[in-house]
């Protein structure tokens, strides 16, 4: 090493570092210091907007436990004896070709149920897994009384694993943890997320947890955030970098929304276990459940392996039968023309088919279908 270094000219060693530093800072300032990116909308695509409904200044549709208090406030204020809980993924908060005068399925259903004196509280997160629904279900079950629980079962969500940090804080809630401990999958979720501390202000410094360095690192980071705008937007740049890699991968490998998504066996089984556990827990608490196969775009070939998708639907239906739970298959509910396109998932690509989010009219069809199911099967039939 020394021999090589002797030959190296100092300028040749140091200049690229200085030029690199200046250009890196310039690039970050120019390209990343502008308006903040809403990654949820970015994931939904350009043509789709997030819609978390409110009623009389209270949220009726929330994301997870971080904003749950906003929905619970309204629920307690309305003080209705019957209530429905609806959990889901971005399909129920994403409206394709959204216009300001339109509303989402949760708001339409909320309005219909209010007329019957029944409350509705909805929670949804993008790419929510059934395991996450299970955690949120147990968390909410100990906080609000609801008679009916609506759960969409989405094939894509069966490929999702893990508990996002905004939900994992629920695992530190004693009642939620106690409920989860009763099942194998609940124990597994608790075990896999046991290092997530509810009081951790920043998982960014998990590597120095419980060391003298921890507080020093926190103080320095706070100072840097307060004084340097570039430091503050680092998470934003990271997010954009991941999106760039995702689009680059799709471009190189020719992946788009129509590409076949296979079952990931381990994740699928874990989600099925969570589904079974949730149904058992609901039954034990005298909560009626409506499971539905989520609407799927049917004017083009579906992005799943047909045999796997059929097996999935069959398994969910058999489970509903076994657990004496209402089941409706709404996969063909929304006709093809009510779906749309989204921004390309490839670098520099054209708009692509959106298989998850439909237009306002589709939301109306969904809320009507669910209202009808509630009318036939449950509390509405008693009124």
């Amino acid at each position, binding site marked *: 090493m020394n021999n090589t270094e002797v030959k190296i000219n*100092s300028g040749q060693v140091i200049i690229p570092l200085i030029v690199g530093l200046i250009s890196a800072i310039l690039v970050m300032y120019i390209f990343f210091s502008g308006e903040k990116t809403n990654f949820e909308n970015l994931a939904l695509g350009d043509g789709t907007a997030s819609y978390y409904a409110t009623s009389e200044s209270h949220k009726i549709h929330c994301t997870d436990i971080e904003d749950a208090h906003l929905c619970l406030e309204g629920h307690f204020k309305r003080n209705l004896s019957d209530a429905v809980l609806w959990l889901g993924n971005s399909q129920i908060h994403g409206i394709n070709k959204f216009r300001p005068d339109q509303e989402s399925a949760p708001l339409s259903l909320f309005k219909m149920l209010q007329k019957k004196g029944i409350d509705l509280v909805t929670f949804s997160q993008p790419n929510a897994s059934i395991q996450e629904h299970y955690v949120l279900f147990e968390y909410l079950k100990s906080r609000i009384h609801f008679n009916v629980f609506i759960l969409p079962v989405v094939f894509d969500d069966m490929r999702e694993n893990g508990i996002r940090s905004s939900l994992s804080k629920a695992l530190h809630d004693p009642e939620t943890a106690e409920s989860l401990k009763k099942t194998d999958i609940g124990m597994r979720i608790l075990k896999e997320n046991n290092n997530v501390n509810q009081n951790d202000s920043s998982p960014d410094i998990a590597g120095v947890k419980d*060391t003298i*360095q921890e507080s020093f690192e926190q103080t320095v980071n706070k100072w840097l955030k307060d004084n340097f705008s570039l430091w503050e937007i680092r998470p934003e740049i990271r997010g954009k970098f991941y999106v760039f890699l995702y689009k680059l991968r799709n471009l190189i490998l020719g992946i788009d929304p129509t590409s076949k998504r296979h079952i990931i066996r381990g994740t699928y089984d874990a989600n099925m276990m969570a589904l079974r556990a949730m149904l058992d827990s609901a039954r034990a608490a005298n909560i009626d459940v409506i499971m539905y196969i989520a609407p799927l775009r049917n004017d083009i070939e579906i992005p799943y392996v047909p045999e796997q998708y059929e097996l999935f639907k069959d398994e969910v239906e058999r489970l509903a039968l076994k657990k004496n739970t209402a089941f409706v298959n709404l996969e063909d509910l929304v006709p093809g023309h009510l779906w749309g396109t989204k921004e390309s998932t490839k670098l520099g690509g054209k708009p692509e088919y959106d298989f998850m989010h439909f237009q306002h009219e589709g939301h109306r069809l969904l809320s009507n279908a669910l209202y009808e199911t509630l009318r036939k099967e449950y509390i509405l039939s008693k009124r």
Partner: protein
Amino acid sequence: MIFNSVTYLIFLMVVVLLYWMLEQRSRLVMLFIGSLIFYAFWRIEFLPVMLLSVITDYIVALRIYNTKEHKNKKLLLLISLAVNLGLLIYFKYLLFFANNAIGLMNFMGITADPLVLNIILPLGISFYTFQTISYTVDVYRGFIKPERDFILYSCYVTFFPQLVAGPILRAVEVIPQLSRRPKFEVSFLGIGLRRILYGLFLKVVLADNIAPMVDAGYGQPLEHLSAIDVWTLAFLFGFQIYFDFSAYSHIALGSARLMGISFPENFNFPYLSVSPRDFWKRWHISLSSWIRDYLYLPLAGRQVQDRSTGGIETSPGTQSNQWKLGALYTTWAIMGLWHGASWTFLIWGLYHACFIFLYRIVTPLFKNLSENTRVLGGWAVTLPVIMLGWIPFRAQNMSVVMGMFSKILQPHEYLWLGLRENTYVLAAFILLAIIITYLIKRFIVPAYSRQPLLSIAGESILFSIIIGLVFVFLRPINQFIYFQF
């Protein structure tokens, strides 16, 4: 203190500034105190443990040098070994050996309760004890004279860049550099910063982003993993640990270089090795060289060396073949256990011993092949064998190890996939990237370096990307994997 943090960068800046500002004596005192602060930022309560090892070997080495009688020298050496290995055994192996002994007793019908002790492993203990042992053994062997200046000697052992995860250096490589004040050169800063940036890039951009995929894969129940998944996870963990550990070495080398001190290289494209012997000359070179000089060569009855380079070498020696075979397996069993008190690490060590042994047997069969065929064939065999070896290194327990190995032997387990698609894409991409990086370093960089302007332009682009990514990803979300050893 963890390297991948803002705290370390501030600490390093202050130390380097003081280093070049202070006079020789104050500089050494500052380095010693700085190193203790560096260590205490992790857990202050383990400072006395480290200082015990440091002080013991300082005194013992001086005594060995001043003692005339060989018998007394040997006794003093044994004291040093007893203290250092005693610390290692207590903190690292006591629970493992005790609970295995208790398990055996229970198996034989003698009832005994498992030992319950809350022993926390002091950071870097496996590294600094090996370093102090090498110092005392080298004095005992007459390779070096003991250092009388306690501060200078202590700086050698506790020098913060290499304190907690190596490289494991010899006194002869460090003490002379610390004792002479080098003249400041801008190139020290340039080269040091480059190495630190490479290291941070490998750690915070690559290793830390691979980690969640590896954790998710190894967290799956075995029945959800196919044979292809096992291979993929073996490769992916192989990449993670390489990036993680070589990152540490890069930052250590770079930090030392900022002060004009050169450390020998600890890694050299290990996954392009063409034989197990070649691999151990490219992977964690300072440890394999330590094992070579303080364990394997003495056991095999051959003259040892006094440098932390070169890695494991075969030895004709003076002993019988059976003896040398015993030395090989003993060495590798200890090498495995050095990494951790677990059967899985022992299996990892013995796996490598078997691979080396087989290599020695089959090599003569291919001596008539062309050089290119041997190199390519050697790489095609060595890479997957080395990668499979990471399974026991990473797996939680022996049943997982056996389960994963059995998967790869079953043909029907190759017919399905159980991981997210990105996992396979990433593993394939990294393998390709390593090969391309090597080819660029071997063929394109030398050509570019003859044209200064092109070289500066190319490097400026490279460093703007590296600096940008390191800036964005720098956060201590994970420790270095080798901190647990």
